[in-house]
């Protein structure tokens, strides 16, 4: 009922996040940092509308790559607050631009000079984010990194999202907060996509 729409690969991929040490500040001006919440691709494997986390990342990365910009992925462990995660990512980003993502799908584009509670673009309605939207978010983040002025990704609205998703969103929020490890710093992760079958 809620499988992602739009172009997704016909191949089935699995994603494993491999910690490769503490996250460091980037120096390349052409990089965007993707900052993941503690439970992303960990205790959770998909967003509130069942977009697989592997697909979320693959589309964000594709959007960035299409713009000719590089990406680095970090995972934050000591907070599940989207603004805090995104802002930390932005401060570690060589371009100053980051995309922060919560396990349930809520996403934000941040910039390091902004106040933590501010943002460049916010996508608060996690139930409305599908693969094509994640692609556009990646693309916009990369374009900000290049100093271009992208049109903000159009945000959608659905009045009936409340009865369907409000409580589940609260539950996922609480669950993600449970996985916070106070005092554990952000780590840089490598992504292992495995292509299990084609077509």
């Amino acid at each position: 009922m809620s499988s992602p729409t739009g172009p997704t690969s016909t191949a089935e991929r699995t994603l494993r996040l491999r910690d490769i040490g503490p996250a460091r500040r980037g120096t390349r001006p052409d990089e965007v940092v993707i900052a993941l919440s503690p439970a992303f691709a960990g205790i959770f494997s998909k967003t509130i509308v069942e977009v697989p986390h592997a697909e979320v990342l693959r589309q964000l990365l594709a959007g960035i790559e299409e713009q000719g910009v590089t990406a680095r992925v970090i995972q934050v462990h000591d907070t599940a607050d989207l603004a805090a995660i995104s802002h930390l990512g932005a401060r570690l980003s060589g371009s100053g631009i980051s995309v922060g993502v919560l396990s349930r799908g809520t996403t934000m584009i941040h910039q390091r000079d902004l106040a933590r509670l501010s943002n460049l673009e916010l996508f608060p309605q996690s139930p409305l984010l599908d693969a094509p939207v994640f692609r556009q978010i990646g693309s916009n983040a990369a374009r900000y990194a290049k100093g271009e002025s992208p049109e903000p990704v159009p945000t959608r609205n659905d009045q009936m999202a409340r009865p369907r998703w409000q409580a589940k969103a609260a539950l996922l929020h609480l669950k993600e907060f449970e996985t916070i490890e106070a005092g554990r710093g952000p780590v840089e992760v490598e992504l292992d996509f495995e292509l299990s079958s084609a077509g």
Partner: protein
Amino acid sequence: MELVVGVDVGNSTTEACLARVGDGAVTLLATALTRTTGVKGTPKNADGAVTAVRAALERAGVTPDALHRVLLNEATPVISGLAMETITETIITESTMIGHNPATPGGTGIGVGVTVAIGDVGDIADGPEGPVVVVVPPGWDFDDVAATLNAAVDTGVDLTAAILAGDDAVLVTNRLTRKVPVVDEVAAVEKVPLGMLSAVEVAPPGRTIRTLSNSYGLATVFGLDPQQTRQVAPVARALTGNRSAVVVRTPTGDVTDRRIPVGELTLRGEARTVRVDVDAGAEAIMDALARAQPLVDATGEPGTHVGGMLAQVRDTMTDITGQPASEIAIRDVLAVDTMVPAEVRGGLAGEVALENAVALAAMVRTDRSRMQAVADRVADELGTSAAVGGIEGAMAALGALTTPGVERPVAVLDLGGGSTDAALLDRDGACVAMHVAGAGELVTKLIDAELALDNRETAEHVKRHPLAKVESFYHLRHEDGTVQFVQEPLPPQVFARVVTLGADGPAPVPTRLNLDAIRRVRRKAKRRVFVVNALRALRQVAPRGDLRALDFVVLLGGSALDFEVPDMLADALAPFGVVCGTGNVHGTEGPRNAVASGLVMAYSEAAP
């Protein structure tokens, strides 16, 4: 000695000038400015007029009973309207080309081959029939596209290029074992004719294509004879300046640039009637107008676009004046050529071409000014006498004379919203005044259309304020190249954007165009309306129509406060040896209060 107050009711502001008059001398006491109430020339103006008078009295510390007389202007009897119509269109037939400039094409170089759907690539693998250009419909994932193409190349398919529906060109190219040029974001990719010879060209970043935008390049690629080369020339022209393009060779495919018949404009002059096709462009229309002068009325052929344009103007007038449309006579028009981005018919990727359009401003005389009613109400409210007197233009010229460094003969220019008004006061005190159609609102409309903003508020902002590019949260680069640093971070919605710098801080201009392009559009619009009209209006008041016969030109009104228009006009008038600048009424009021002050001066001169 008499205490009098001049009141000028303008379209948006009402100004007052309080002075003591006697023995030919005028002593300025105070000025005031307030918002005009109601449409100019209607009884409701009285409220604003009274407010302005009271404010001036208060500022001077004088009670209303000491007031001898209120002098009101005779409102300029013109109002104006606007319309715009596109007169050309570009049509691509048989899906001959794709020239939409995606932001990120893939690969570089040129690939020529027969178009094949990606779903059919596997079938030709066994018996390769020469070079192929692969066409990929929407819904295909970039990883799958790359894998499919790589597999095809491995089996011997001669892949030369690809055309994609999605925004995947770089992604696909990065994953190809054989790098080929790739054009993407072709929305209507299903319309690309299959089995046809085609060429795909992608230039390196920062460059434009060289082969497909060159007629002989096309001739070489497709092996065309001279006759055929002549035929494809429009295709090459349409692709000039693009970073990527696709040309498909189809039997009768073509790109045409068609003129849209929009109808005939009839200019009825006092001596003769002149007809002109509107699609002939602004120059032809203005030539025709010159032959028909002085204009009695203008009409458009019913049922044509121009008929609609003028009907629209007349409707606006009827709404404002309450005069029936049949009684409204158009006394001047200004036609301006403009280029409007429009989607190309038959395009496959939402290609946009700059189409020619004509904007038309029209002006109507109205005899329904009801300033006497205003005067009666003002007199009643203030318990004093009030009189309507003085042609607005003449009064403005008198007021402008109080600008330091100005003497008779003086010409004034009032650049308003709907009309541009000029008046000349000669050495003997005789005055002529003229009004021509087109001013600030037309500029806004041109900016709105040429930038495809579809938002008059943004267009107004672009018109009124200088531009800057926000380069970080802490600094922006002004349009003149200077950099300004700020202490507090700029708001997120202006980050990396071209902004206008208005009183409320930077506001983003929602367009893909860069700062220079926006600036060019803005300045061109101002030049084509304000400069053209200033010269047109001044010629009509200048002795023998000779601008060299003018000495001093004083700019008045709100547009005289524009940050660049006064300089543009000064530059335009300099070759005629005219001193031109923004007025400074009484040496203190800037370009404001000229008419109100002029009313007081005229009263003083006429006083026994």
